[in-house]
C-alpha cells in the first residue's frame, strides 16, 4: 500500500501521542534515580544537564521516529526514503506542537500569561525547527535501513540525537 494523505495526518497525531510517552519516559528516569542521589546543588545540576542533554534527546528522537514505523507495520505501507523523511517531519511537527503546549502550561504557572506567550513564540521559532531538522536526519537513516537493510545508516539516528542534545546544551548554557 502506498502512502496517502491520511497517513501524514495519522503521523502528525501519533507524533503528539508518542510525545507524551517520551515525556513520561524522561520524567520516569528522573523519578527512578531520585532515591539514589543525594542532591547537593552541584549533583542536581549535573543530573539535570545529563537528563536534558542525553536522556531526553535519546527518548524524543526514538519517539518521533516511531509513528512512521508504527504506520508501516499497521497499514503494510511501502515507504521510500523521501516519504520516510516526510512522515518523520510530520510526526516531529505533531510532537513539537504538543511539547510547546505542555511547556506553555508550565510557563503560565511560572512566569504568568505575558511571559508564557512570548516564550511559546520563542519555542515555536527555535525549538520546532530543531525538532524537524533532527527528525529529518534520523528518518533518512531509518528510511535507508528500512529500504536497503543496511544497519550502518543507524548512525544518522545517533547524529540526530547529538544535534538535539547540542541544541539543549546550548539553551542551558545561555541561561548562565
Amino acid at each position, binding site marked *: 500500500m502506498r502512502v496517502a494523505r491520511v497517513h501524514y495526518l495519522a503521523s502528525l497525531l501519533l507524533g503528539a501521542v508518542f510525545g507524551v510517552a517520551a515525556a513520561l519516559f524522561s520524567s520516569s528516569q528522573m523519578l527512578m534515580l531520585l532515591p539514589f542521589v543525594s542532591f547537593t546543588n552541584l549533583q542536581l545540576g549535573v543530573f539535570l544537564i545529563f537528563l536534558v542533554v542525553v536522556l531526553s534527546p535519546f527518548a524524543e528522537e526514538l519517539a518521533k521516529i516511531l509513528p512512521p514505523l508504527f504506520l508501516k507495520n499497521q497499514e503494510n505501507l511501502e515507504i521510500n526514503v*523521501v516519504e520516510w523523511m*516526510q512522515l518523520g517531519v510530520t510526526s516531529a511537527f505533531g510532537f513539537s506542537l504538543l511539547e510547546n503546549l505542555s511547556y506553555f502550561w508550565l510557563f503560565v504557572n511560572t*512566569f504568568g500569561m*505575558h*511571559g508564557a506567550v*512570548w*516564550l511559546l*513564540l*520563542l519555542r515555536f*521559532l*527555535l525549538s520546532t*525547527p530543531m525538532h*524537524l531538522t533532527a527528525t529529518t536526519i534520523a528518518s533518512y537513516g531509518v528510511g535507508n535501513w528500512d529500504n536497503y537493510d543496511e544497519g550502518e545508516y543507524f548512525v544518522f539516528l545517533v547524529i540526530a540525537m547529538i544535534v538535539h542534545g547540542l541544541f539543549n546544551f546550548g539553551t542551558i548554557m*545561555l541561561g548562565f
Partner: protein
Amino acid sequence: MSFRKMLTLLSVFLTWCAAGWISSTFILEYSGLVVPAQKFYEFRFTTILIGIVLLIFSAAIFVVSRFLKEEKRVSKYIRCKVCGRKVPFDMVICPYCFSDLRERKNELSDED
C-alpha cells in the same frame, strides 16, 4: 514531491529558522524575563548575524528553485468517460465498455 517543491520548502524552513534567530533576543527582552546587560547585546549581534546568513541562504535556494524547470508528470492511465475505469493510456478502445477513448485523449491534450 518534485525537487523544485522540496527546494521551495527548504527555503521557507530556512526563513523560519532565520526569523527565530533574529527575533530570539528581542522576544526574551520584551517578555521581561531577561534583564539586558552588555553581554546580552553582544549575543544579540551574533544571533542577528546568524539569522541574516540563513536568510541569504534561503533567498539563494528560493531563486535557484524558481529557475528549475518543473518535471511534467505524465499519467500512464486514462479514465474512461463512460464506465469511469482506469485504462492504459495507449489503448484506443476501453476494454471494459468498448467506448472510444480517442475523444478523451484529445480533451486531455487540449488541457495541456
